[in-house]
């Protein structure tokens, strides 16, 4: 990458080293680097004049498909017994705590910190209900994965292959289904016909049946690999995610809270990650109340 032409900037070099080290094991990450390099070198400079100026209005802001505050009112997601079906068992993870569940005949579920999941066995197979947080499902070999259904307030998901994540945030009444391998069938909660979501894609479902299919990225299941990926996020938000996944209290001074950060940050050891952030931006790290604080 052209960045290597400027090795004299230690902070920049360190950030890149951290990013590459975190992704070195994944062929896909290197492919991206090469793809980007090819793309940038092939584009003639004559084309760049238009690129330099940002579009007048941003696509994301105008699509506005996911803004919503009304809670879903569909009744099925309130667990109840129907003629002898067993009640759900509930699993909850605290910040910093992960749980792994084995679903006999289907696969395993990895539950992220700060999640709440209901599970029950039915005649057809397994049903999972994700109230909040994130899970990653990995099917076992030769599993009959069609017998598993994952539900949230906004959506249902049925795997047709091996690996996907589902995230549900109650605050924004939104569900995100990202597929890492093979594909799943997913749809809005009250829509019986699902659409296929393939590896590399992500489906976002909001209230009122609104949904959007987009390209997935490494950020979706980064937590499984022990990383939080930040993309131009306010520092306070990144610290909140790191705190949730690590279980270590993290804070920053108010004037830093809105500072935008990007990069790939290891969840553990979180002290090293905070030191990296501090070095990149010229801040200080201070021990506080069993955790850490970033200040000027």
């Amino acid at each position: 990458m052209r960045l290597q032409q400027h090795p004299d900037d230690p902070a920049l070099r360190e950030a890149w080293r951290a990013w590459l080290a975190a992704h070195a094991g994944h062929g896909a990450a290197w492919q991206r680097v090469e793809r980007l390099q090819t793309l940038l070198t092939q584009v003639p400079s004559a084309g760049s004049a238009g690129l330099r100026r940002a579009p007048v209005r941003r696509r994301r802001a105008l699509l506005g498909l996911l803004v919503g505050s009304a809670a879903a009112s569909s009744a099925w997601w309130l667990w109840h017994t129907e003629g002898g079906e067993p009640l759900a068992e509930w699993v909850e993870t605290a910040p910093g705590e992960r749980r792994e569940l084995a679903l006999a005949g289907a696969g395993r579920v990895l539950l992220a910190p700060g999640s709440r999941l209901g599970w029950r066995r039915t005649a057809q197979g397994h049903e999972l209900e994700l109230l909040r947080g994130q899970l990653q499902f990995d099917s076992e070999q030769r599993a009959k994965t069609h017998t598993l259904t994952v539900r949230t307030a906004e959506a249902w998901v049925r795997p047709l292959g091996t690996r996907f994540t589902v995230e549900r945030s109650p605050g924004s009444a939104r569900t995100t289904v990202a597929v890492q391998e093979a594909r799943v069938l997913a749809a809005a909660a009250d829509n019986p016909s699902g659409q296929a979501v393939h590896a590399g894609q992500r489906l976002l479902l909001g209230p009122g049946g609104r949904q959007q299919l987009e390209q997935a990225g490494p950020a979706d299941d980064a937590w499984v690999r022990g990383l939080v990926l930040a993309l131009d996020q306010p520092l306070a938000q990144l610290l909140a995610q790191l705190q949730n996944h690590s279980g270590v209290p993290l804070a920053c001074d108010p004037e830093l809270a809105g500072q935008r950060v990007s990069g790939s940050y290891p969840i553990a050891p979180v002290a090293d990650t905070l030191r990296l952030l501090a070095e990149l931006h010229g801040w200080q790290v201070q021990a506080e109340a069993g955790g850490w604080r970033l200040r000027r």
Partner: protein
Amino acid sequence: MRPWTFDELYREHQPWLLGWLRARLGHGGDRAPDLSHDTFERLLRGATPMQALGQPRAYLATVARGLLIDHFRRQDLEAAYLAELALRPEAEQPSPEARAQVLEQLMLIDRLLDGLPPKVRAAFVLAQIEDWPHERIAEHLGVSVSSVKKYVHRGLVQCLLAL
């Protein structure tokens, strides 16, 4: 709610959508039929079941709006590109196929850069596509060289994550 079929939706709303698009396209109104077609194609391909469309026109307008943004943006990029090419000698002009390919690449990069603040975006494009040295970019944008380096890094991270 009364269920719609695709045919009914098309018959009921396509003329309206055509007018809606023409009003927003101005001179380029001849593109309205194409964009209308693309909008309905999205509807057909899309996940929202047609029975659930309580407000079909609002939904169609939302989809069409997104397509319009892409359309205008593509026009801007193409116009700027052609204007630059016009300054170059006849012998260096690329074929229509080559031009079309460049335009696709520009649209892709544009999508990757979506959301970056203006100076970050400009710094990234000047450094990575036009090969300006950091000092020159810093002077041009009125920022420090270390800011330019941070902007370029940020642009790279965003592109890699978005690819």
